[in-house]
């Protein structure tokens, strides 16, 4: 047992640090450091910088243009990005649809879609949730009816993150009505430029436009866009969920956020708040080691399964509590709500510098215990698969 990284991992970490120091676009860094919302172009600039470095396929095998990194290297890369204050790498292309395409897609599909993902030339979004489906994902109703060489799609998706920026969407659609609802689901790729697609913003309680409803009315999609077999979409969807296991704990970002919080709180003479920060720091350090333990087990050939739901539960609890403590640190200035766009660069917000974005960040983070399988669902999973209850 050894907590330190190997020399080669340390060398790798230095390389990541150097990249982040030199090539993480400075205008993006400035906005991130100051809590200013990123534009679509900022996001593209950041992702392009990773692409250019050749690291976009950080969790892909070499044969598809990925880095072929070890699990430890992936962990180091993600953590360092978090520590440097980067926005999270958008998962939809590289971590979600990409692995599905290279695992289940045909050669034509691989050569058509994978390079654009690695170059960040295509912005993908995810069409899973539907109004009414919630955690019961398999109850989805969006229909795809085969008509010659095409599917005709009707229905709607919701909570579609950044659909307003997306070029393509990957969707779970119902190609057949079956007794077992998981059957009859297919996995299909849809160009957002298709006629009949309408994207409507959903404004969240922090005032942001991050998610959307997407409506499909007689949208005609080439049958060639179907991944794998018709009716096997649920299998691919489950594969995809299992693929995105690490990173969800967001240890790097939380450590960065905690360090700043500690600076703020140390000035406040607020023993109750300090006590909460202490407990949070302990919780975060246990989360970090929990993630490393699972990582070690993985590298050792073990297959930790539902245990990794702990990362989702505790990771989001910590992310949420961090924002709660920022709000407490803002004291009476938590009252002022500059909105998601903040005061921009010009207007001078009232009160201490750390206060203005505390509440919008707090409100934004409420989603984390709801999305990706709510924390209640995660506990059901642990109960069933780990405890056998």
């Amino acid at each position, binding site marked *: 047992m050894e907590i330190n990284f190997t020399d080669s991992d340390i060398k790798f970490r230095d390389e990541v640090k150097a990249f982040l120091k030199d090539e993480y676009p400075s205008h993006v860094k400035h906005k991130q450091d100051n809590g200013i919302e990123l534009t679509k172009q900022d996001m593209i600039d950041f992702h392009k910088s990773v692409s250019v470095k050749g690291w976009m396929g950080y969790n892909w095998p070499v044969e598809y243009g990925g880095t072929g990194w070890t699990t430890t290297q992936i962990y180091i890369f993600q953590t360092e990005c978090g520590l440097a204050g980067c926005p999270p790498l958008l998962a939809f292309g590289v971590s979600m649809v990409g692995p599905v395409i290279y695992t289940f897609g045909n050669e034509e599909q691989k050569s058509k879609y994978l390079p654009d993902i690695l170059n960040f030339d295509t912005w993908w979004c995810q069409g899973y*949730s539907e109004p*009414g489906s*919630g*955690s*019961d994902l398999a*109850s989805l109703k969006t229909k795809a009816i085969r008509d010659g060489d095409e599917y005709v799609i009707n229905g709607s998706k*919701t*909570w579609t993150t950044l659909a307003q920026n997306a070029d393509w969407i990957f969707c779970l659609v119902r190609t057949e009505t079956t007794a077992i609802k998981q059957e009859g689901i297919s996995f299909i790729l849809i160009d957002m430029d298709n006629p009949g697609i309408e994207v409507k913003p*959903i*404004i*969240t*309680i922090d*005032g942001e436009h991050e998610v959307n409803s997407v409506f499909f009315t007689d949208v005609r999609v080439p049958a060639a866009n179907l991944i794998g077999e018709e009716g096997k979409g649920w299998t691919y969807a489950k594969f995809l969920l299992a693929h995105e296991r690490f990173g969800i704990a967001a240890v790097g970002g939380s450590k960065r956020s905690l360090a700043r919080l500690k600076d703020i709180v140390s000035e406040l003479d*607020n*023993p*109750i*708040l300090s006590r909460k920060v202490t407990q949070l720091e302990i919780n975060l350090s246990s989360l970090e080691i929990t993630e490393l333990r699972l990582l070690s087990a993985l590298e050792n050939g073990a297959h930790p399964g539902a245990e990794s739901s702990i990362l989702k539960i505790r990771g989001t609890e910590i992310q949420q509590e961090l924002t*709660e403590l920022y*709000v*407490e640190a*803002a*004291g*009476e*200035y*938590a*009252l*002022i*709500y*500059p*909105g998601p766009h903040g005061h921009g660069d010009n207007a001078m*917000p*009232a*009160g*201490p510098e750390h206060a203005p974005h505390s*509440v919008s960040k*707090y*409100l934004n983070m*409420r*989603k984390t*215990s*709801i*999305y990706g399988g*709510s*924390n*209640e669902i995660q*506990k059901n999973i642990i109960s069933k698969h780990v405890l056998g209850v």
Partner: protein
Amino acid sequence: MNLNYSDEQQMLRDQVQKFCDADYSFNKREEILKSDLGYDADLWKLFSELGWLSLPFSEENGGFGYGPIELSVLFEEFGKVLIVEPYLSTIVLSGSVLDKSNYAGRADLIESITSGGSHISLAYLEEGSKNNYAFANASLTSSDNGLVLNGTKALVLNGGNASKLIVSAMMNDELVLVMVNTDAEGVSSITYPTIDGQSCAEISFENVQLDESVIISKGSESIDLLDNAINIATLCISAESIGCMIACYKKTVEYTKSREQFGQPISNFQVLQHKMVDMFIESEVCKSLLFKAMLECESNEVTKNKSVSALKAQIGLSGKSVAQDAVQLHGGMGVSDEMSIGHYLKKLIAVDALFGNSNYHLNKYSQL
């Protein structure tokens, strides 16, 4: 001992409830928030006609002489539908200061606000004053022409809509409260939106010329007036929070009963049931602390301050917990701005920030 509402109090509740149910839908509120004023001037007039704006004023000042119990009835109902009209700022905070003061012009000013005609805001906080309103950096000095006010006041509730301000400042090492017109020369303000959809202002005074007649109070009288106003306001927003919490658990019960997943309403899931029970219990616990604080208003300083701090501390903790659970149990809908539920969370976070948050009052309580 009798902890039941009187018939009169119950009638007031029925009246307010009827108004809220009939005339204050969530959509209506959304429209009001989009307006320039940020509140509905017609409804404000209606509040005046219904006598609500006069509730807490003494009879000599033309009011009903009602106490915190009646105010809490009003605010609990207000909380249930998230009323945004500036009752707290104009009637409770500024009104209490005026009502208890010996200020010569108080009768006219009270008439002007209870008629719904104008707003007065209380400018007692400054950046960094950490809820200690017995001291101010703003200064009132004598000059040849009278008095000169300098300084900047922070987080003035509804400051952008007020025609007059009650401002705290130091004069010869004493805290004074003075009445200042917002259109006086040297007064400037920036208005900020607040999380709960209302607004507050940062207001600066640069060599504002005043005469002696503006002085409302000096020294310990100023502190007493502020203490009283802020204590009552704390009870009011606590009652409002309880209204919010009640709405949260009721709306969540309703939502989980209607929302189906895995072939059944999600209200069938025991974990959700117990969370809703916890929400209910928290609201009841807070209500008990509110009763205690209301009924100990007239007790000695320590008893009164302890019961107010216990209340405000618990309101902060329970309010956040209840509203967060409400959002969580609404799932994705909970974080959608279109649904009302997230707005209860915002209101409860705003309440915690006002007049000292939960940490502040727990600390204060343990030192009393």
